[in-house]
Every structure is written in structure tokens, then in C-alpha cells.
């Protein structure tokens, strides 16, 4: 079952892009995840909460992102279905 978490509609923000479109070192704001409910809940529990800031630490498979102090590794197929708001280049 595909579930969007958080509940904001993707249509409301047309600039949302897939996490996999980001490069290493870039930061972005978590927008939504089109994943199974349990995967969304797990990501949320790991700290990927509504509008949280995340930073790309490694691209490829696995994709590694940092949310606050948590480094989360995820399969590329999963990262593709996570959408973020436009990034800013990390200094």
C-alpha cells in the first residue's frame, strides 16, 4: 500500500523532487514518502519527521542521509520514493 507521510498533497508543492536527484553534501527538507505504511512509520521513528532537514552523506546504493544526528542508510529503490523540497548547497 502506498502511503504518503506527511499528509500534504504533492500537488500543493510542484518543486518537490526525489531524494535521488540530490547530490552528496546537499541539504533538503523532507516533504513526503510514497512508501508502505510501516516503512513510513519506521522512517518517522528514526527522525525523518514532517519538514525535517536532511543532508545527503552518500549517493548510490545504499543512499545515506543524515537527519539531525541519525545516519540512515536506505536502499536506492526506497530513496527514489522519498520526496524533498529544493535543496540548498551545504557549505
Amino acid at each position, binding site marked *: 500500500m502506498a502511503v504518503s507521510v506527511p499528509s500534504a498533497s504533492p500537488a500543493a508543492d510542484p518543486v518537490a523532487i526525489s531524494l535521488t536527484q540530490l547530490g552528496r553534501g546537499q541539504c533538503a527538507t523532507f516533504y513526503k514518502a510514497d512508501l508502505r505504511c510501516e516503512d513510513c512509520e519506521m522512517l518517522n521513528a528514526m527522525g525523518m519527521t514532517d519538514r525535517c532537514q536532511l543532508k545527503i552523506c552518500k549517493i548510490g546504493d545504499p543512499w545515506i542521509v543524515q537527519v539531525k544526528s541519525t545516519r*540512515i542508510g536506505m536502499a536506492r529503490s526506497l530513496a527514489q520514493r522519498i520526496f524533498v523540497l529544493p535543496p540548498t548547497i551545504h557549505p
Partner: protein
Amino acid sequence: MTRVSPDSATAGAQAASPAAPRPTGERRSLRIALFGNPNTGKTTLFNRLCGLRAKTANFPGVTAEARVGHCPADRHGAVSFEIIDLPGIYRLALEVPESRIGRDIMQGSALYQRPDAVLIVVDATNLARNLFLVGELLAHGLPTVVALNMTDLAQRKGLTIDTAELARQIGCPVVATVARKGTGIAEVKDALAREIANFEAMSRARGISPVAESMRSIIADPVKLESWADQSVASSVGGDAAIGDASDTFTERLDKAFTHPILGLLIFAGIMAGLFTIIFQMATIPMDIIEQVFGVLGEWVAATLPAGAINDLLAQGVIGGVGATVVFLPQICLLFFLISLLEDTGYLARAAFVMDRIMCRFGLPGQAFVPLLSSHACALPGIMSAKLIPDRHDRLATILVAPFMSCSARVPVYVLLTSMLFRERPWLAGLAFFGCYLLGAAAGLVSAFIARRTILRGRSRPMVLELPSYKMPAWRTALWSTLDRGLVFLKSAGTIILAICIVLWWLSAYPAAQAPPEAVALRAQAAEVQSADPAAAARLITEAATLESSHATRQSYAGRLGRLAQPAFAPLGYDWQLTIGVLTSFAAREVFVSTMAVLLTGDAQADLTEDPGMIDRIRASTRDDLTTPVFTAATSASLLVFFVLAMQCLPTLAVTRRETGSWKWAGLQLAYMSIVAWVAAFITYQGLTLMGVS
């Protein structure tokens, strides 16, 4: 720098008095539920608190385990804590079995008893996320203490944590700890005792605590909970890395190497090769010692007790059976010790991603690799180490296919059968030997693929894992974990496996058969020539013993079962003797070699590596028609395929039942593997026969 109160590492436990000994002198035990996110050092803290006074227990109705330990609450010893080390969870509200256990315990529902207090282990380097769980637990209104663990790592990262302010923000005492060094352990116990005493006094006066009331409204709204956590961190944590997004070049470089598609695979292969080399090399010595100890013990019992059924039962059934299982204990202990060390370094989480790319094609997660590789040594530790896999369906699929991997107990059988097939062509025998390993691994992966599309429907979930910080492993934790797994295995060996061994021994040893007339005649002849030619007499006695042994096996219940079951194995090319060998090897695969040696040559102490002539004697043996060899080429190939694929290990079945919590999965494993083995052996035998290979 992490700040702690000058006189104590505890903050926020004002106006509290330690739980004093009761005037009546009665001993009091208080239940403490130990919670924490994964990778917070929760189990290390538990080990520091309880040490060896702990045991592993299963939660009723589920396969998850917890360790339960005891420790004195104070120096008087009148009050003690019963601490339950619960599985690591991110949130209480998650719909995963571990979180459900946490919720049930906190509510005292189902079969669980509500704890008297809660101890939450929090990672000082990742405070904000850890506070979500703290908030959920505080809402339950029980006396709660937070152990702010890994404060040394936080210091190194430049974090300054004001524990007093943090305690004020979250509304419960906070104790700074470094569990791996044992820092703050006494303070944790003091804080728990004080909180319980405070709670009891407050409950009598006011009922529910205001902290719990306030937290209930906060956790109802995820946004509020996150703001609460962020605000608590903002007020109490300072330093350059306070918001937690500081770059860590060391971690990033290691992650890049360890998860690289090629380099990561090479590093993983190197580490696994090292791990299994250590296991095989180092386990050999204690395994030999165990074998010798049980051998000497069996001989001593046999020589000491009067001959008869009790003697046989103890010497052969109990000591022989348990010894044959306990011999794997060193491999199991070494495996768990090394895995625990690897896990503690933070490497295993990265390795899981490397293997996930390959394993996910067969519906298995990357974490399944270690259990499957371990199963090449023995399926018992392999199945036990499947606990590393978080998803239940992934775990079950791994357990179900683990016995397909060629374990060390199959090696003597492979030696015998490949030698039968390619006696004069050792390179072909070696190729066949390797082929057995490949066939087993392929069958396991294909079976996992089928299982994930049928009984365990669903693809392996795309992997998402927290990548813990790299750190030096805690030897003490690894030792305790090893001891724990070893004891679990010994308990299993001492109960269900012992029972199985006794039953199988009884089936193969009874009813006791009278010596055959040929053997009686040989012994009489030996007696006549004893004084004239002692060497000839000894040869005659050996021949008589061979005949007696072979006759006893034929007349045993197992032998009769073999004759009864032979029609089922006839399409695979097996006569009644091979059928007995197959049936008796359900106790343990390697038994096949000794059964064949007893049946066909009468030598129960056959050792194929020590006695190359033994293979020739077995090869020369014939069926009842006295012309057809027992082992034709087609039969040997069919047997080889059967032994690669069949589930002939009752101890493995017992461990499967234990790890899955049901005989259903053990039964399914037995039935599925037996059918696959029978069909594959049938195809092999019939195919070769049709091609004219006999």
C-alpha cells in the same frame, strides 16, 4: 563538555530518599522495565547492572526474547531490582512486535506484569530522536529514570549537555553514564530507588503525576512531541554539534568504503573469510576435547555400571547422544562472540547493505547472509543467529532455508559418496564435492524465492537501517552475549535434543539380538586356536564381532523400520541397507557413514580418513542377491543429491521450533526438504539409469 552535578551524576531527583530496608526485614523485589532505542548501549548497561545474574526468557506468544536480571538496589540488599532488558525500539506506538511488547508491558495487559519503574537508555549523541520514546513512556506515569549513555562520545563530538536542565525540561531524573566503562551505574540504581520512593509518597497524596498528564497531551500530537523534544535539547545541549549535523569525515570515509559495490564486497568477503577461518581453526581444539571427555565418560560409565539396559542407555544413549550435540558448542560460542564484536563496531549494519543487493533478488534481506554462511559450519548457530533479521517474514524465510547449506556434518557423507563415484579420479571427486556446496546454496536461495511468493508472501522490504556510530567493541558485552547463547544451546541440548537422541539410540539398539550361529561358530573356533595361534584367534573374534554388530543392526527396530520403509526409497535405487542408513541419519547426517560401516563391514568405528580401505570394503559390499553392488554409480549420485537436500538433523528441527516458536515451521521444513530431496534424488537415479549409468 558533558556537565554533571558535582556530588552525583544524577540530576532532577530532588527531595528524594533512597528506598530504605523495610522494618519487618522482608526482602522486596521491584520490577524495572529497561527501554531504549536500538544502538544506545542498552544491553551493555543491563550487563553492567546485572552481570551474570541474568537469564534469557521468551515473551509469551511471540518469538522475541528479553533478558531478565537481578541486582541489589542498595548496599543493604533488602531491596532488589528485577530488570527486564526489552528489545530496542524507536517508538512505543510503532506497529512492530517489539513495540507491541513494550506497550503491553507498560499497560500490564495480556500476560505481562506492569513494572514498578522504567529505566530508559538514551544516546547522548542523538538526544532529540531518543526523547520521542522518553515522552511516550513518561505519559504512562510510572517512576522513570533516564540514563544518558555514551556521554564520553558526546564529549568527543563537542557536545555539552546540562543534565540538570535536561531533567527539568523532561520531568524526570537524568543520570550521565558510560555503560561500557561502568560509569554512573551506582547512580542509576540510586535514582531508581529514589524515584520509586518519591512515586509511592506522591501517589498516596496526589494520584497521577502532573508530568504524565502533560505528556499525554503532548504525545497525542506528533508535531507537539517533536517540538517538546527539540525544545528540551535546545535548552540543555550546547556546542558546535548541538543540532547534530556536523560533518564526520571519518565515518563518511568508512561508510563509502564499506558500502561500495565492489570494495565493500571485497572487504566483507575478507572479514567473513577471517571470521570463519577463526571459527574452524579455534573451535577444533575444544571440540576435540569435548569429544574426548564424552568418550572417556562413556567408557567409564560402561565399565563401572553392571552390563545391561541401564548401562547401554547411559553410556551410549545419554552420554553419546548429548556429546554428539554438545561438540558443536565451541563453534556456536565463537560465532556469537565474533558476531557480537562485529555488531558492536557498527560494521554489520553497513555489511547488510552490501549483501542486500544480492540477497534481495531471492526475497531475502542482506542480514540473512551471516546466518546462511554460519550454516555452512552448522545449521544450529546459523538458525540462532537469524535473530539479527528484524522482519519476521524475512527471518522465517532465512530459518527455513538455512539447513540447505552444506554443514560440516555432511562432509563425511560427501567424502564417502564422492569416493564411491570417483575413486580413481580425485579431481572429479573434488568437483563433485564443490558441486554439493553449490547445489545446497542454490536450493536454499531458490526455496527462499518460492517461499516469499507463497507461504511468506511479499518481497523483502527495501532495506532501511540506522547506521550506528563506529566504535571499539565492548569485549565484556560480547562475552556475556556468548555465554547467554551458549547456555540457551546447552539447555536445548539437555532437554529436547537429549530426548531425541535417546529415542533414536533405543530404536537402533533394541531389541537386543542373539548372536548369529556363524558368529558363535567363529568364537568357538577362536577359543580352540587361542593357545596355538593368538593372532588368528584375535582375527576370528574380530570377524565374529563384525557379524554380531551387523546382525544386531538388522534386527533392531531401526533395521525393521528400514525394511518396512524400503519400498518408498526403491525408486531412488536404495536397498534395505541404504534405507536403514538414510533413516538412522535423521539423528545426525554423519551417522550414515557409521551405519553403513556397521551394516556392510561390521566396523562401527569406521573412519574414512584414517582407514582408506574402509571405502573399498563398503564399495565391494553387495545386496541380498550377492551380485549387485550396494553402491552403484547411479545410487551413489542419487544418495549424494539426497544428502545435500534432505533435512536429516533432528537437533536442527528442535532449534527451528524454538526460534520460530512453533512446531508448524519445523514440520514444514522437514516435509519440504524431504520432498525436494526425494524428488531430486529420484530424477538423478532414474536419469542416470536411463542414460545407462549404473
